[in-house]
């Protein structure tokens, strides 16, 4: 627990809190079936999302999956535009044209989101090739998951990225689940570190859910990937605290088990990055931060 002047959270940590708050607000909307489009929240991924968002500079590209809500909330100038997009409104983030699973925001660097497993890896290779052609000091980041690494397209894309020395970071969000199946229920173990080693790709694993650690690692990685013009894989162990997607048939307790009035911490373990933050700053300080979030509400009357 920190004390004195250390009671100030970093901007990234505050953003992680805000992101949890926004996602829980949307989760309440999902309970009322407000949206026609399926929204895939990322409760539990806040440390990862905020860290990646912090290293996306102008000219960089971020390519996401269908679980892009958290990223778009953090990167949008006005996160309420994301909710308006889910409502199908003309003044939504993508003018009501893309809905949820393919939502992008090119202005903020989010150029592509795909719900098809591993489809975005090769597209990201193309974006990264664009950096090489223009000889810019930029890189691309592509999100994928433990389910998508089973696809041949993941293997192809990684080999292509290495063969052409592309400035690309492939982030594997390993939450152990592909829809309702755990890794052990559907396949053999894949040791990504060994796989990456076999083709000479740098590999990093993150798992402590500490926002600042993740931010530091991604900042360092950005510099290394651009200066060496060589791809890297980051495997991040996460726990998805909202299971799949809103009130999906087959998950009767989802999202009902998550309740905003009970506070921002969903799970009292290090699997929850917001729990990690609370442990770091102490319950008293954390409660103060929580209270201040009221002004960040997505569903404010003035908007």
């Amino acid at each position, binding site marked *: 627990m920190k004390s004195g002047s250390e009671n100030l959270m970093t901007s990234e940590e505050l953003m992680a809190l805000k992101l949890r708050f926004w996602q829980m607000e949307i989760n309440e909307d999902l309970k009322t079936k407000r949206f026609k489009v399926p929204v895939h929240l990322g409760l539990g991924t806040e440390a990862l999302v905020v860290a990646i968002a912090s290293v996306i500079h102008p000219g960089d*590209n971020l390519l996401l999956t269908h679980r892009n809500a958290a990223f778009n909330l953090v990167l949008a100038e006005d996160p309420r535009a994301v909710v308006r997009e889910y409502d199908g409104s003309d003044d939504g983030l*993508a*003018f009501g*044209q*893309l809905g949820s699973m*393919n939502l*992008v925001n*090119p*202005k903020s660097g989010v*150029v*592509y*989101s*795909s719900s*098809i497993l591993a*489809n*975005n*890896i*090769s*597209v*990201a*290779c*193309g*974006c*990264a*090739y*664009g*950096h*090489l*052609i*223009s000889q810019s000091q930029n890189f691309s980041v592509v999100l994928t998951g433990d389910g998508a690494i089973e696809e*041949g*397209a993941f293997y*192809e*894309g990684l*080999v*292509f990225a290495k*063969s*052409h020395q592309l400035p690309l970071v492939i982030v594997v969000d390993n939450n152990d689940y592909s829809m309702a199946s755990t890794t052990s229920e559907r396949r053999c173990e894949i040791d990504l570190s060994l796989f990456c080693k076999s083709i000479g790709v740098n590999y990093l694993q993150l798992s402590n859910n500490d926002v600042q650690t993740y931010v530091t690692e991604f900042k360092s990685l950005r510099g290394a990937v651009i200066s060496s013009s060589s791809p890297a894989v980051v495997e991040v162990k996460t726990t998805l605290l909202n299971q799949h997607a809103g009130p999906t048939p087959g998950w009767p307790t989802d999202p009902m088990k998550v309740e905003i009035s009970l506070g921002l911490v969903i799970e009292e373990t290090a699997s929850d990055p917001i729990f990690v933050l609370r442990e770091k700053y102490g319950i008293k300080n954390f409660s103060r931060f929580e209270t201040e979030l009221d002004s960040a509400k997505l569903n404010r009357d003035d908007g």
Partner: protein
Amino acid sequence: MNQIISDRVNQMENTFVYGENLDRGSFISGLSKNLVSGPTRLVKNVGNCEYTHCGVGFGLMMSGKNAVLFVKQLDFMMLGIDHFVSTYGSIRATRYQQPLGSFTIVTAIYDQGFQGPQSSFKGLGEICSMSGVSGFLLQELSDARKIVAEEISKPGIRFFALSQRLANEELTEVNIVDAAPDNSVIQYCSGSEVSIVCMGYSLARGKSLVNLCAENGKGASLFSVNYVEDAKWEIAVHDASRTKKLVIIDDTHSTTSLSFRFLTDVLEYDAEVRFTVLRNRAVKSTAVSDERFEVDCKKVFAWIAS
């Protein structure tokens, strides 16, 4: 054809030119010879991952850069259908900050029938139909020159496809008298007795029919059609309405052929147009077999003269 394509590609900037074995061996049946790298143009031999090649093209496109992918045969592009349908669909629904780059796939359709059952995919029209991607058939030097010059740098994606069946036939310069603004239809001559519209790689059959008409004092209009979504093919529709006689020659095996869509548009415009459709009705064999499509010009001419 190689010269037309390479001359144009070598003028392109901010471009990635790639393909399997494009700079060695047969140079992809000669298609990729004479390609040269420049300060912002990379020409590279790439590994065997066709799905990824398609995704790379779309990534470059959304980055405002250009991609030219050389592919030995259309069959390999079956692996990219996910990208043509889903990725391109997503890109088309997105408003990007900067103009999209261009993505051109240059390939050959193995349509002579002797390659074997796994190398016989001829359904460029099907790919174009399901994805909204344009497909241009390079059959003559004049139309190839026009299409390559006008289409290769346009934002978005298109195929340039050559016919392996026609590879040994001499290419000719055929005068172009008109073309649709989207190059969905190209017109080669104009006559008052009949409109001949060629689908697939049937232009040579159309030319034979035009010649027979001319020998017998009948003027014919001749068109070829490319696969373009929402084709602006009014010049051919209006011509058929003018001559009141329409011959459609279609050498594809497709059950979703453009022939039907074109005919519907003609008859909606003018129900009095008489028509005949010459289709490749041979049962599509999965075994090695001759895929030549012959047209009985004398029989068709008799119908035109009647």
